[in-house]
């Protein structure tokens, strides 16, 4: 009689040589146990073979690119492939994105009603960055993120020639582009919360934000050197 867990520990090579020899003898003497050992070995081999196919596949470019250190802060290529794969997304991820869109008005409204510290101000009928957000957009390099406050993601030139930057903090993420001496807010999305954060992180940012970038970008996002040079030129 061999106890179940000991039988499997033997099968997995986890027993000491003495114990293994005892179990081996017991299994050899018992056709039922011999059959069970063969079935489990075969099943485990099948499992290894099936998942081994994944290991043998080429690693997707978007994963490899993350380790090449090309200075880009978020992967736009990924956002594009992500959008193409939208139908493969779980239902609730799409629902969450929709909910985030609906929340924009609420967020913008509450912030606009605020006082001096409000990160977004109306000016001449446009929404522009103010306070800490304005400062982050003007002085923060994505390669040197601040410990607190908004974080800058991508910087790029849009099809009208303006420099645009994505930003994110705990409450919201969005896109601002340089107009005159201001950062005009082009898009604003409710911030990552709870589970949705994993999906956003996995796609290099809020999928809707990445789509807004994708729709307006001319060429590729700036790398770290281009971003620094753009700041030194005053974002023109």
């Amino acid at each position, binding site marked *: 009689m061999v106890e179940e867990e000991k039988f499997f520990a033997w099968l997995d090579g986890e027993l000491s040589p003495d114990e293994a020899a005892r179990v081996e003898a017991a299994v050899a003497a018992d056709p039922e146990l011999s059959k069970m050992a063969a079935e489990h070995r075969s099943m485990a081999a099948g499992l290894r073979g099936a998942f081994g196919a994944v290991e043998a596949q080429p690693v997707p470019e978007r*994963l490899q690119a993350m380790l090449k250190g090309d200075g880009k802060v978020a992967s736009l290529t990924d956002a594009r492939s992500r959008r193409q794969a939208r139908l493969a997304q779980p239902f609730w991820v799409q629902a969450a994105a929709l909910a985030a869109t609906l929340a924009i008005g609420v967020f913008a409204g509450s912030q606009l009603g605020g006082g001096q510290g409000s990160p977004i101000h109306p000016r001449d009928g446009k929404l522009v960055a103010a306070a800490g957000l304005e400062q982050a957009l003007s002085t923060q390099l994505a390669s040197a993120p601040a410990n607190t406050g908004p974080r800058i993601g991508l910087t790029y030139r849009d099809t009208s020639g303006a420099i645009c930057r994505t930003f994110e903090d705990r409450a919201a993420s969005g896109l601002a582009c340089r107009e005159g001496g201001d950062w005009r807010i082009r898009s604003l999305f409710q911030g990552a919360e709870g589970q949705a954060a994993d999906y956003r992180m996995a796609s290099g940012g809020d999928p809707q934000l990445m789509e807004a970038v994708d729709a307006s970008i001319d060429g590729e996002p700036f790398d770290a050197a281009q971003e620094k040079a753009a700041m030194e030129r005053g974002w023109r």
Partner: protein
Amino acid sequence: MGSSETFENELTQLLPRLRRFAFSLSRNGADADDLAQATIERALRSRGQWEPGSRLDSWLYRIMRNLWIDTARARGRKEKHEAPEEEAQFVGEDPRESMDASLELKRAMAAMNRLPDEQREIVALILVEGFGYREVSEMLDLPIGTVSSRLVRGRTALLEMLGGSADG
């Protein structure tokens, strides 16, 4: 930059194995590659917490497992309220993977998917990834007896689903 390049090189070399683990945990290929990507992001951000000289693979597997369990838990909560659970039949409907996901892989993923989470991770780590009981017990902070008993239950259920003979 020397040590940082080593870290990234080693991580790059481990990518095929990490993806394999992601596939054995996830419902479909798209989720698996999202999990792999989230794991790389987390690893790059927390590289300071990895002790050079210790096993990078175990450290990465642990990161991936923790990200996966957070996702699975949150999804479980969400889906109760918002949407019917997606079944593993969705494997292969993503055009990116219909090319390369073999029938065997789909069957294996579907079967793994029907295991409870706490059995699936242990089956994946021991039977697929080839870790020892002790390594898994340390990786998951579980008593070795728990690892052993969950493994027995998981593999027994899998044998019923997949069969044990070579032709399935």
